[in-house]
């Protein structure tokens, strides 16, 4: 069943066209990894999907109810989309003035008006799943990057989003912390969560993704199963890009 469908998404910043008509379809429970060189518009594309950026053109379908045209999005649609998506940020972006537990509860209690007891139960459960429960009372600045990012994932998961977006979730981490976060993401993927992951972790993309999308210069150059893209890339651009990651792609 189709969970996300984007057609012809275009985005300009000033006179600079960043996304030149990107289309993508994601089935329910599918894990899509977007790879590509820096500046190819991957992150912008992701931010258009939860409307942190307003795309200029294109159509968008999310879940069963949301259908819209990017060129005119009303405030109701905007809110609907933000209530049905969640995002994990490259720089974690946990709320600095709240504890770990409060961070995870916030999205349930404030925008979704859930009772504090119920939200606390859900948050506790989520923190357990990312193995951060014993740090529930800590403030973000007291945690390592990897720990913060795991809380970031718990915060997003707690909202049970139709679509979970990961914006280079391990790029800001020290190398030895990347493994923990990827392990949690793998677990999220296994739970049947529909997700789109922008990443430079080729090994992760190869092993976890149902579909890999290679983007460059604001267009989708090639997409397919991990083995299609990594082992038998059809486009010269894709081959050139993947040659930088030789070891991980061949393993």
């Amino acid at each position: 069943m189709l969970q996300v469908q984007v057609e012809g998404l275009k985005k300009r910043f000033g006179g600079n066209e960043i996304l030149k008509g990107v289309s993508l379809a994601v089935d329910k429970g599918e894990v899509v990894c977007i790879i590509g060189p820096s500046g190819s518009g991957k992150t912008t594309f992701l931010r258009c999907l939860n409307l942190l950026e307003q795309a200029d053109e294109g159509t968008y379908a999310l879940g069963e109810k949301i259908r819209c045209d990017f060129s005119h999005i009303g405030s109701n649609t905007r809110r609907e989309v933000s209530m049905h998506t969640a995002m994990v940020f490259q720089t974690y972006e946990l709320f600095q003035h709240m504890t770990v537990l409060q961070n995870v509860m916030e999205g349930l209690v404030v925008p979704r008006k859930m009772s504090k007891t119920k939200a606390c139960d859900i948050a506790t459960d989520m923190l357990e799943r990312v193995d951060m429960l014993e740090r529930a009372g800590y403030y973000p600045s007291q945690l390592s990057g990897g720990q913060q990012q795991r809380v970031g994932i718990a915060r997003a998961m707690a909202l049970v989003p139709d679509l979970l977006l990961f914006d280079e979730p391990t790029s800001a981490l020290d190398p030895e912390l990347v493994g923990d976060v990827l392990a949690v993401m793998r677990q999220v993927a296994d739970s049947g969560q529909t997700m789109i992951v922008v990443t430079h972790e080729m090994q992760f993309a190869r092993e976890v993704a149902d579909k890999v999308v290679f983007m460059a210069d604001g267009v989708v150059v090639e997409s397919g199963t991990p083995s299609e893209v990594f082992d038998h890339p059809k486009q010269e651009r894709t081959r050139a890009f993947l040659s930088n990651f030789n070891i991980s792609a061949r393993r």
Partner: protein
Amino acid sequence: MQFNFQAMVKSIAYSIHYLGITLLIPFVALVIGVVFGLIIALLRYYDAKVVAPVLQVIITLFKGIPIVLILLALYLFCSTAFDPIAQSLHWSIRFKNINTIWIAIVGLSIMAIVNASEIFRGAFASIRKGQLDAAQSIGMTRAQTIRRVLLPESIPVALPVFGNLFINLIKASALCSMVGVVDIFSAATISGQQSYSFLEAYVGVALIYWAVVVCIEKGTGLVEHRLTGKMRRAA
């Protein structure tokens, strides 16, 4: 020339009775400044159509005018224009019945609003945009984002600067004697005139100001410590 210590003590004892006024005017101005300054800063932060650029012009305008001029202009305006306006509106109140403390409060409030809006603006600018993205990504409306993220994260940044603003307002309130308000400064002048001991009176009143300012600094320091201690901001 010799310094008459006793005259200074006497002058302090006399002028300290007016400490209430010296604290009241800046405090009311500060409260008004925080409220309106916050509204102005938010309108500018979210780039409200038409309003934001107009506010920017007004703020820039008032930022460049010394508080003495604002107070004197207000006084002159009220003393000449108030009675005709009141007459035409059939109010029974006249300028001579108005306590000039209101002019002082309005004048210092203008100073407070201008400064407070800039303080909030600076504090907002120190919040990473990603924090607001995160708020939006979990479904918060703009009002919820302001209430739950922007303000709680800005206040620890703004608080010490507001302590400074309060101190500046207290010192500026000495100028209110120019529009006929009796505060500790004009009380000190009066007591100096009575005994021809101006130096002693001024040193005495300076000591009062100094004590008040030190108390405020310590006070905001304590509150700040509690707020930031909770957040333990990593630098």
